[in-house]
């Protein structure tokens, strides 16, 4: 409390406080004694500077505070009253200052709590804690240390002031610091220890408080001063409070981060399961059922869709697999599927089922994309076969058959075992058509129903192969061969002979078998890879001498699946 504060206390009773002002006026009247008071700067605080004959000095703490001027000795009673009032006011101010100091501390701690509660990492909390400590505690240096039990290290996570080689010093003092952390108490470091400790040589005073959470101590907050000061118990208490606030916040931040990581890990695990489940049950299938996730499907969910069903099958798989071990066989099939799957997906289809040496794929967008995918699969295999040829391996060929139509997609099984299933005659027909591609010697075979639904039929080239009655079906189906997946030379041959092939087929259906045989013979002679021409040549030749059934219309009746 300085001179200025004392003067303020005096002014307060003489000029501001109504009660004291009233009392002094009353006394002045009662004693009939006038007076005036001037402060040490000759500024008038009370009354008028009249012709007073006497004066007395108001001293406080050996300094002149004001001069009391009077004429009548009775006025000295008033002077004594003023001294008393001043003493009371001065004490009030002293208490006021202390209360304000405490209020500042409360306010700082309140602000600190608010600030650190927003932080979610220890470093930020430590920074804020040190910043706030400097605001309220007279200090020039600070360290925020934490003990990492896993690494058995004491780490500096925040600091202020210039702390030379702090981490090196911390490492050197590790055992002492660990002991202090273990002890978990706060203390003002005795001056002689500060002086003796080489790590504190830049300081003249130091104190520390533990970062305690329940019964554990996470670390220490250390404050120091480069000047000769003495930390007080109140300051240590304040540091302890800040350290406690910080450690709770750090613990909460850790729990938050831990919780966050757990949630992230769980989400990651769910995402992985979801990704994996998508590979087993295609997401397109789930979407077709009007569901977003596999977890939403339940037994009995179903949806009707018009799609193109494609069956693809490795030709001569038995011969290829003959020389392979079961494992190599598996690897071979995987290698094949790895090449085909992306082509299906690229063309907006999805593999519904793998069937050992082949697969069934669905194309919700219809036959245009299904046929494009089928041609691309053949071309990809042609490239693959070039690689295989270099390794003297047998070429891989596939037969593709497709049908377009409605089918039911649904979840079947029982409450403990579910599976995605499709049930439809379209699927059976597509499988039969694929089987027929072997019989006709074609690479891609499709039904009339598929061909009619093509958005751009001109993108492809076809040969009509007549009608066929597949096993179990009464109605014949018109069949077309798509030739664009054939080897380049065979494709060229088929393109060159499309007209004569159609002519041959017309002759065949008109029962002019001899002429038909000649026509197909000519086509076959041009390229002996044309197995379809060979088939019709043989059929025509056989029928020349055979008696026809009644009502023969050239419909091929298949008795095999």
């Amino acid at each position, binding site marked *: 409390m300085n001179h200025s504060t004392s003067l303020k206390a005096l002014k307060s009773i003489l000029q501001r406080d109504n009660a004291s002002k009233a009392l002094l006026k009353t006394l002045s009247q009662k004693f009939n004694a006038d007076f005036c008071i001037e402060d040490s700067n000759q500024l008038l605080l009370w009354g008028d500077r009249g012709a007073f004959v006497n004066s007395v000095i108001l001293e406080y703490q050996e300094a002149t505070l004001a001069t009391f001027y009077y004429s009548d000795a009775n006025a000295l009673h008033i002077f004594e009253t003023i001294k008393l009032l001043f003493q009371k006011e001065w004490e009030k101010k002293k208490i*006021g200052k202390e*209360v304000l100091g405490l209020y500042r501390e409360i*306010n700082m701690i*309140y602000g600190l709590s608010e600030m650190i509660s927003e932080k979610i990492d220890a470093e930020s909390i430590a920074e804020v804690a040190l910043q706030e400590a400097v605001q309220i505690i007279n200090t020039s240096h600070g360290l925020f240390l934490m003990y990492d039990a896993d690494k058995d290290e004491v780490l500096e996570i925040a600091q202020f002031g210039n702390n030379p080689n702090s981490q090196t010093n911390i490492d050197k003092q590790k055992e002492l610091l660990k002991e202090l952390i273990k002890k978990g108490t706060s203390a003002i470091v005795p001056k002689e220890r500060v002086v003796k400790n080489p790590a504190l040589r830049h300081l003249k005073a130091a104190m520390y408080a533990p970062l305690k959470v329940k019964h554990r101590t996470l670390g220490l907050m250390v404050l120091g001063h480069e000047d000769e000061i003495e930390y007080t118990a109140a300051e240590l208490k304040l540091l302890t409070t800040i350290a406690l606030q910080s450690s709770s916040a750090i613990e909460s931040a850790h729990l938050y981060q831990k919780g966050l990581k757990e949630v992230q890990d769980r989400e990651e695990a769910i995402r992985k399961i979801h990704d994996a489940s998508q590979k087993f049950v295609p997401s397109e299938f789930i979407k077709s059922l009007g569901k977003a996730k596999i977890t939403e499907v339940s037994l009995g969910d179903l949806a009707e869709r018009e799609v193109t069903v494609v069956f693809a099958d490795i030709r001569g798989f038995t011969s290829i697999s003959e020389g392979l071990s079961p494992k190599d066989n598996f690897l071979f099939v995987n290698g094949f599927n790895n090449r085909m799957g992306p082509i299906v997906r690229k063309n907006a289809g999805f593999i519904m089922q793998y069937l050992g040496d082949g697969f069934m794929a669905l194309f919700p967008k219809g036959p245009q994309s299904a046929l494009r995918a089928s041609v691309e699969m053949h071309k990809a295999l042609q490239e693959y076969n070039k690689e295989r040829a270099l390794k003297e391996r047998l070429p891989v060929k596939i037969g593709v058959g497709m049908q377009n139509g409605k089918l039911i997609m649904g979840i079947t099984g029982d409450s403990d075992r579910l599976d995605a299933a499709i049930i439809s005659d379209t699927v059976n027909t597509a499988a039969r058509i694929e089987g027929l591609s072997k019989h006709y010697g074609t690479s891609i075979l499709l039904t009339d129903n598929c061909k009619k639904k093509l958005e751009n039929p001109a993108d492809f080239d076809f040969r009509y192969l007549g009608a066929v009655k597949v096993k179990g079906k009464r109605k014949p189906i018109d069949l077309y061969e798509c030739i664009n997946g054939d080897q380049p030379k065979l494709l060229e041959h088929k393109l060159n002979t499309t007209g004569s092939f159609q002519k041959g087929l017309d002759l065949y259906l008109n029962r002019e078998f001899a002429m038909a045989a000649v026509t197909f013979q000519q086509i076959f002679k041009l390229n002996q890879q044309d197995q379809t021409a060979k088939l019709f040549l043989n059929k025509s030749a056989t029928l020349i001498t055979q008696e026809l059934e009644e009502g023969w219309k050239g419909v091929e009746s298949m008795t095999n699946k």
Partner: protein
Amino acid sequence: MTKKLLIVDDEPHIRMLIEQTLEDLEDDGVELLIAENGEEALRIIQEEKPNLVFLDVMMPKMNGMEVCYKVKKELNLSEVYIILLTAKGQEVDRQKGLDMGANKYMTKPFDPDEMLTIAKDILNN
């Protein structure tokens, strides 16, 4: 001309805290005035026309809102800068206070340093 600052709060310890906080202004010649309730505050404002008033909202007799309304809307003393003081949690009154013509709003517990800075800024302008 002497600048005047009026502190209005019915709680003696809050009055003392604000007075202590703003005491340094006296060194710059600012006169600190004190009122213990709304009625006294209104009388001092009319008589002394302080430049700045720290006015508590929750007071018996006449609350801070009423004082503010009378000063700003009835007496048209727009030059008197009024800062309303309200306990934290009563922020809902904020808009009401501003509607009554208050210039600024501060919540208790107030930050002493912030209060002094604000007072200095307002008195210097």
